[in-house]
């Protein structure tokens, strides 16, 4: 009976070994490369908080008190979570939202992303409205004092420029 159990266990272990060892052998190198690729990629979304304002994986300060430990934490998070979002979330839990290189597009921080484009769009709309109004006014009233070529200020300027140029020749 004992021999039978031992034999079964040995067989199971052997089978297990057959399954695990090659898979370990296959996965060992790629897993490390994949982790490093993810660390490099996600590290570019994070900031070093030592005061240098550099991207986490680009901080080159010797003995930087932040980037070294933070990259190690990121590596752990990447190993623990398959999802990039979860790994980033783990970093936020550890270091706060300040570790993100750009503000998250949610809540009040959404304003960071929207405002510049909204301001630009508002400016463009304003210019478009002004241009339309001005050109309509020009079309509707081509003989107004301000726009006529007979405007004395315009004529005076033309006269001055001609005088200046002719003066330069004489």
């Amino acid at each position, binding site marked *: 009976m004992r021999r039978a159990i031992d034999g079964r266990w040995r067989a199971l272990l052997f089978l297990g070994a057959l399954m695990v060892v090659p898979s370990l052998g296959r996965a060992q190198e790629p897993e490390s490369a994949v982790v490093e690729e993810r660390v490099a990629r996600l590290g570019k979304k994070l*900031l070093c908080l030592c*005061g240098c304002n550099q991207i986490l994986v680009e901080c080159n300060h010797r003995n930087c008190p932040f980037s070294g430990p933070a990259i190690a934490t990121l590596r752990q998070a990447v190993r623990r979570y398959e999802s990039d979002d979860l790994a980033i979330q783990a970093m936020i839990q550890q270091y706060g939202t*300040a570790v993100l290189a750009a503000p998250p597009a949610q809540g009040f*921080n959404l304003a*960071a992303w929207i405002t*510049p484009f909204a301001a630009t769009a508002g400016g463009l709309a304003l210019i478009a409205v002004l*241009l339309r109004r001005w050109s309509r006014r020009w079309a509707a009233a081509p003989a107004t004092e301000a726009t006529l070529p*007979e405007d004395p200020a315009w*004529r005076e300027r033309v006269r001055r420029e001609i005088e200046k140029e002719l003066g330069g*020749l004489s």
Partner: protein
Amino acid sequence: MMDSLGSFAVLLALTACAYAFLAGILAHVKKQAILGATARRAGVTIFPTLSVAMACLWGLFLTDDFSIAYVANHSNRDLPVLYKFAALWSGQEGSLLFWSWILSGYMFFVLLRHREEGELRPLAGVILAGVQLFFLILNAFIVSPFRVLAEVAPDGATRPFVPADGRGLNPLLQYPEMVLHPPTLYLGYVGFSVPFAFALAALITRSPGERWIHVTRRWTMIAWGFLTLGILMGAHWAYAVLGWGGYWAWDPVENASFMPWLTGTAFLHSVMMQERRGMLKVWNVWLVFITFLLCIFGTFLTRSGVVSSVHAFAQSPIGHWFVGFLMLVFAVCLFFFARRRDYLRSEHRLEAVLSREASFLFNNLVLLAACFAVLWGTLFPVISEAVTGSKVSVGPPFFNRVNIPIFLFLLLLTGVGPLLAWRRTSWESLKRNFTYPTLVGGATGGILFASGVRDLYALMAFALSAFVTVTIVSEFYRGARVIRTQTGRTWVQALLELTLRNTRRYGGYIVHFGIVVLFIGVAGSAFEKEREMEMPVGATLELGRYAVTLKERKQGETPNYIYERLTLEVRRGDKPLTTLEPERRLYKASEQPLTKVTIHSGWREDLYVYFAGVNPETGVPIIHAYVNPLVRWVWIGGGIVLLGTLLALHPGRRPVKVAVSERVSARAKEVAYAKGD
């Protein structure tokens, strides 16, 4: 002795400045010419007086007088003389004195020249004296660079203290370019005080005519040129010294210099509408005001500790002084604008959407939008913390995503604007002017796409660069062709004649071409490659076309620092290319480390290598290498921009008679048109 003389000189300058300011105001209000003349003379004396203070501070650095706190904190005995000279502006106190000195130099020049400006010059002098007064108060009472180092004795008494050696200059600043970068940047920042003074003086006096706008434009161009040079040098320093592989990181200090550059650029474009068409006067005056306010704001950002930055000054008590000064200047601008806005009424209205005027409006909007995006991103951490209570960071990913589309639009306008006619452009003219540029731009994009380039922004940047280049070349071609037809000169002579005949216009085109080249260089960053590797002696790192082999690892010492140097052999393909020697240094006086970057620069790409560190377990050096495509074009583009600026500042040659008669006849036609003939 020298410290007492320096302090006395600062106080004397302060007194002269206060007199120039107060007597100048009184002379303007009471219309007393003699009092005005004394105010002007007092203003002129500030420059030589502050020069004495500067000479004293330089003397203290060169003689290693460590009894002075500022010298002890920013220099040491073994610091090379060149860096002792540059140490003057390496800290808060000295750099503020340097600022005042440059401002006094500008003031000296303004007060001795511009005699033809009538009432405008004295008042501009008074405004400059007002700005100077603020900085001299800081120099004399708040952050004096001449303070003596003291220690508190056990009995509680304070007594002078002279350390054996100073704490040394920040190693990052011990780089030849750093000797020139701060002065050029300051010449830019401070230079914007002059157009500000003239614009405000013109507003106050309701200065007749357009003389003030010519003076303001010229001074803005000078300040803008220096600021451009300063920014470029700063970018090159960051690239060659900081070792993060790039030249621009959207650091708050970089942003602080970039914002006035953007508004100054907007002014240099929109001012043409005022000169030619008497339009956008309110806009122009406010652009000059905002540019000056942004210069002061940038100084506040870098010196208050409000935002963290690798090269900002430490948190200091002068932040609220700058806030107060900013508010005061803004209030003064607002007050006079409200009182005098009738003087800024436009002489003409926009006639058509397809016109040079409309393109300038869009150009201004885009430049201001870029400025706002930079300001918003720089301040957002502070705003967010105030609103939500939690801190966020705004780093390069934000600035790149927000600003790249804006700058691409700006690049498009750079090509479109100059080809549109003033007042109105016909569809025929549009077709004639834009067919070839559009075809070449489209073809460039198509070829790059077919050759595998998939980065959308890079594709757009290259295509737009080609488009703008063709528009610029066609402008030169058309003008030179006319001269050739009229005079029979060669192409080179005709191009030269054309450029010198209207330096402002063709200098501007050269600036635009420089911006295009710069964009091409920046677009190259989309194809950057990098690799980090632990490298024992004999190991090889392969990156792109390069193979980098560690040949030797050596340690040594100079009087200033201890170093560990790696000798790297670089091969491209089978051929040896160069030898690079990155270093890690430890500066003795400051005990601060520095990584010395090495770069092999080429037309196509740079190989950028730095000694990232040593594995603490194995002791093996770690090398970080980048291949940065097209970086050299960033510097070349910057150089072309500066060349164009110098050309545009040149008064230009009077046109030859044949050409003039044509121009005059064109003018005569305009007059005839004005008369309705």
